[in-house]
């Protein structure tokens, strides 16, 4: 399938779950740029492909199987039933059979079997085991960078086999032999230097936040602060650095600022940990993920805060909710009366339910909304006190600030949500073709609700989703700003105490002679 052009994109594309005919090699040539030696070395990996890569890679498979039960069990337990084969958005978008989850796992499982199982050692032809060759290594690089680790397949599997775990392990094996991906490794290297993925230094960050404060004051007439490095603040906000510069992310940040302002809770951003994203997860590196997470602990201690709240970022929330306590805990120095960490949506919903926010829903009446569950939030984390809160909390907030909300098809939301097409370290321009194709199922489901209910905007709570959709939506007949931050909707509807409202602005000006 050629990438769709905005002009010939059909209005209604049919079934978002439509299964394509398989087409071998359809996305074999879609390859992401490899990392430069300095990127790999900054992460503790060899700069380029090492001479004894084969032995090292095989040994690494064995090491990971000893260190991680999931990897060991998942390699053994698959019965090739085929239930996952139609679940991956990249398979649905490309038709390449190696993008079927089980086939993607088999790229590595076949090598594991050859060197670590009786059947594979003595009867490789029987069980589809194969030697590790340079071609196999290249194939790993290609197809393990066509997996966004979204876990939609893990929900479908009768044994819960999670391709994300295999994909992360494969990337770690590749890194270990000196074959890194430029996008992820360059970003992690930057973060280690400056504290964020952008490589933005504290001075530039301060200037950016001051500009945003001016915008807020201009809009509301009130001095709403976006504090940076304020010692003794109650809350440390950890938010993706995209919130400082990208659209519609910034509007989300302005939303957090308004909510904090209205709630009266003191808060701060840290320039040392000015990044929620943790690409260490994408490359499957426990060590790198731990190092990146540790900065949050350091910043929280240094600033003497009582609470940590995460901004809208999908995989960051998976790391925050599911891993942070393990990687950088125990957080016994924080206030134990609040979840550690807390999600900004949990905070905002509490404020709404406590009646602390003055809301005018009609200010969002031009937005006919739907909501895209971000994969890492949906399947890798939770929110609130109840099971499934990661679905219900965002929806509760949206419904509290908007009058018009419609769900997309059931099999494309909540635990069955599709990845946006750019997650898992694939949000790079050199994979644009794959990103457009991978977004197809989500875009098709969106087109359905546009057709049926006139939906014109989709909200998300993930920096990657927002960037990806802003880029690919135009290919499917939507404006780039059809994707919104949930806190952008909150920002629209919240009226701060003493705020000059639109009605005042719009009041007919008195003609003076």
């Amino acid at each position, binding site marked *: 399938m050629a990438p769709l052009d905005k002009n010939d994109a059909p209005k209604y594309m049919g079934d978002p779950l439509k299964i394509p005919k398989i087409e071998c090699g359809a996305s074999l040539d879609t390859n992401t740029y490899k990392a430069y030696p300095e990127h790999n070395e900054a992460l503790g990996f060899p700069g380029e492909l090492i001479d004894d890569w084969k032995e090292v890679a095989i040994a690494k498979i064995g090491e990971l199987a000893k260190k991680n039960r999931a990897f060991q069990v998942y390699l053994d337990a698959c019965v090739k039933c085929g239930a996952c*084969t139609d679940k991956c958005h990249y398979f649905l978008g490309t038709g390449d059979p190696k993008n079927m989850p089980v086939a993607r796992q088999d790229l590595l499982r076949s090598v594991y079997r050859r060197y670590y199982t009786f059947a594979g050692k003595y009867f490789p032809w029987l069980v589809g085991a194969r030697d590790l060759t340079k071609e196999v290594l290249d194939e790993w690089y290609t197809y393990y960078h066509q997996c966004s680790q979204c876990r939609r397949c893990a*929900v479908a599997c009768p044994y819960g086999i999670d391709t994300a775990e295999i994909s992360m392990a494969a990337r770690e094996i590749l890194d270990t032999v000196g074959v890194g991906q430029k996008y992820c490794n360059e970003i992690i290297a930057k973060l280690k230097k400056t504290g964020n993925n952008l490589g933005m230094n504290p001075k530039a960050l301060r200037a950016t936040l001051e500009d945003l404060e001016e915008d807020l004051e201009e809009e509301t007439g009130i001095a709403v602060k976006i504090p940076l490095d304020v010692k003794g603040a109650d809350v440390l906000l950890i938010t993706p650095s995209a919130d400082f510069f990208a659209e519609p992310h910034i509007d989300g940040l302005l939303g957090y600022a308004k909510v904090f302002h209205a709630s009266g809770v003191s808060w701060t951003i840290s320039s040392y940990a000015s990044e929620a994203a943790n690409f260490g997860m994408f490359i499957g590196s426990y060590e790198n993920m731990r190092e990146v997470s540790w900065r949050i602990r350091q910043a929280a201690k240094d600033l003497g805060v009582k609470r940590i709240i995460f901004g809208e970022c999908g995989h960051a929330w998976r790391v925050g909710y599911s891993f942070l306590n393990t990687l950088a805990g125990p957080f016994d120095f924080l206030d134990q009366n609040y979840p550690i960490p807390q999600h900004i949506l949990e905070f905002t919903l509490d404020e709404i339910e406590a009646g602390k926010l003055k809301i005018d829903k009609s200010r969002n009446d031009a937005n006919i909304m739907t909501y895209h569950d971000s994969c890492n939030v949906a*399947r890798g984390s939770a929110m609130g006190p109840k099971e499934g809160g990661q679905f219900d909390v965002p929806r509760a907030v949206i419904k509290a600030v908007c009058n018009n909300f419609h769900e997309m098809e059931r099999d494309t939301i909540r635990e069955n949500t599709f990845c946006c097409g750019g997650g898992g370290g694939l949000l790079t321009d050199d994979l644009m073709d794959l990103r457009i194709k991978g977004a197809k199922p989500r875009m098709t489901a969106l087109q359905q609700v546009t057709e049926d209910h006139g939906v014109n905007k989709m909200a998300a709570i993930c920096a990657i989703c927002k960037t990806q959709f802003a880029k690919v939506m135009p290919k499917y007949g939507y404006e780039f700003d059809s994707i919104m931050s949930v806190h952008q909707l909150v920002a629209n509807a919240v009226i701060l105490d003493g705020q000059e409202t639109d009605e005042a602005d719009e009041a007919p000006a008195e003609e003076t002679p």
Partner: protein
Amino acid sequence: MISTVYAVLFYLATFLMVAGVGMKVFKYATTPVPLNIVVSPAPRTKRGVFFRMFREVIFFESLFKSNKWIWLFGYLFHWGMLIVLLRHFRYFTLETWWWVEIISPIGKLMAFAMIAGLLGLWARRIFQERIRYISAPSDHLMLALLLGIAGSGTLMSYVTHTDIINVKAYFLGLMRFDLSHTLPADPILLAHLGMVVILMIIFPISKLLHVPGVFFAPSRTLVDNARDKRRVSKWARNLPPLPEGIPAKEEK
């Protein structure tokens, strides 16, 4: 002669299966789970996880949600096989237990459910292009083996009865290390038992490991409690410590 060969085979197969699966289970149980990777939404209590796993193992819940055809055939096969297997207790106990007596008539019929399920699964493997693509020769052979066992067993139940009294005496003997009984030299029976021996031997070295594996998949068996409970594995504890507080040079 044949009786002795089969006796040796059964002792060997039993040993390999028990030891092999035991070793695998030990490996799964002792391999660390360094991070909470439960697939959410997930239960927040152990009780909840017990019910989640109960639904998976008894109803194949996830499979039901993800693919109705595979669920139908898989369900027919697995439940058919379970009842048939339970019925086989009558050949291994001197006095047939009362509940085995009760399920015996159903057990005879369930063989057909088992065969129908296997045929359905095999048809999908052959005719559904996605599943054909992911199938290795061993995947087909496994179905052939199970069909062979089910088919030969059904033949003995309905068509050419074997001398079941002697078969029972033989196995009761084997279980007491008494090799004085002879196995009827009935080709269908010998084929049936031979295939069972093969299945037992390959159990711990094949995809049949999904049986213990399902109970050890962290994506399903963990409790969703990561914000409250740390899980630092042994190897992670030995990683070099990271600094508390922000190093001076990096402070703005």
